[in-house]
């Protein structure tokens, strides 16, 4: 794999390393270690937040419980707005998990000074700037909307491929492939673009100038989490809705 070495022309302050990974061999599979480290960090943080927020549930919520309740209300609204009043309840856990996990991953790259920690190869960054993570999430969404549709309508779910007319059959089948493709590329590209822009700007001007771009990246990554979960909810809604 060819790597553009941009460090020769700069002050060695930072380094663009796309396609360099810290490989682990686990049971015959090669995995990207730097992604796993940050994912575990994010999962640990989210679990700790959930446990702290729900450990002592009271009628008049304290600050931790209140915070977790606000988060849950926000994510419930995403599911409710897309799937609709009558069907949204069983999908709250899935949509909320997607939203919180992606938000945590994106913000881990945007907020934490991960570049300070040296690892043997590659560098620590958002887990979502690895295409494998986003494709896994997008395929999960595909599996879940098929599951939702099949569970709701049985084999009658496949009738939607020939509606409104059978001529649209190829396009309807193609749609099942373009949905995960666009979902995964959108998230991957946006996060990678943010990190690359910040890295390149930091190489040119190390101080102060990259700050607005970092703020933009911080904002854009939260919007991407919102979009991913909204689209997942919309796809599920399309599969489970009854006419």
């Amino acid at each position, binding site marked *: *794999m*060819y*790597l*553009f070495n941009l460090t020769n022309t700069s002050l060695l302050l930072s380094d663009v390393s*796309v*396609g360099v990974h810290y490989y682990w061999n686990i049971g015959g599979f090669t995995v990207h270690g730097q992604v796993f480290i940050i994912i575990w960090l994010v999962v640990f943080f989210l679990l700790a937040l959930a446990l702290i927020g729900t450990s002592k549930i009271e009628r008049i919520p304290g600050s931790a419980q209140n915070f977790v309740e606000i988060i849950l209300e926000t994510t419930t609204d995403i599911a409710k707005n897309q799937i609709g009043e009558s069907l949204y309840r069983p999908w709250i856990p899935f949509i909320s998990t997607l939203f919180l996990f992606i938000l945590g991953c994106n913000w881990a790259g945007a907020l934490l000074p991960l570049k300070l920690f040296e690892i043997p190869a590659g560098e620590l960054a958002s887990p979502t700037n690895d295409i494998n993570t986003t494709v896994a999430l997008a395929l999960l969404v595909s599996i879940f909307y098929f599951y939702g549709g099949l569970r709701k309508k049985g084999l009658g779910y496949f009738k939607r491929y020939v509606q409104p007319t059978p001529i649209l059959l190829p396009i309807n089948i193609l749609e099942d492939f373009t949905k995960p493709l*666009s979902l995964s*590329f*959108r998230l*991957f*590209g*946006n996060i*990678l*673009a943010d990190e*690359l822009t910040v890295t390149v700007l930091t190489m040119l001007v190390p101080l102060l100038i990259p700050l607005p771009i970092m703020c933009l990246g911080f904002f*854009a990554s939260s*919007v*991407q989490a*919102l*979009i991913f979960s*909204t689209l997942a909810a919309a796809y599920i809604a399309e599969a489970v809705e009854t006419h």
Partner: protein
Amino acid sequence: MDSLISAASVVAAGLSIGLAAIGPGIGQGTAAASAVEAIARQPESENSVRGMLLLSLAFMEALTIYGLVVALSVLFANPFTS
């Protein structure tokens, strides 16, 4: 890496991100203009308009990002180099 392939890759990367930025740029401009118009007509609807605008801007942004993904894969993970 063959020098011809690397030259063509760099030109292709520039073209893919540049061309992919045209359409979404026009679209985002139109969407923002309409949102401003809507808020000017009905200032009380500002919050919902802002939410919708951000969501749709991000969708348009995604089209440019597809071009960027192509550019990045051509630069960093080029399939035509051995």
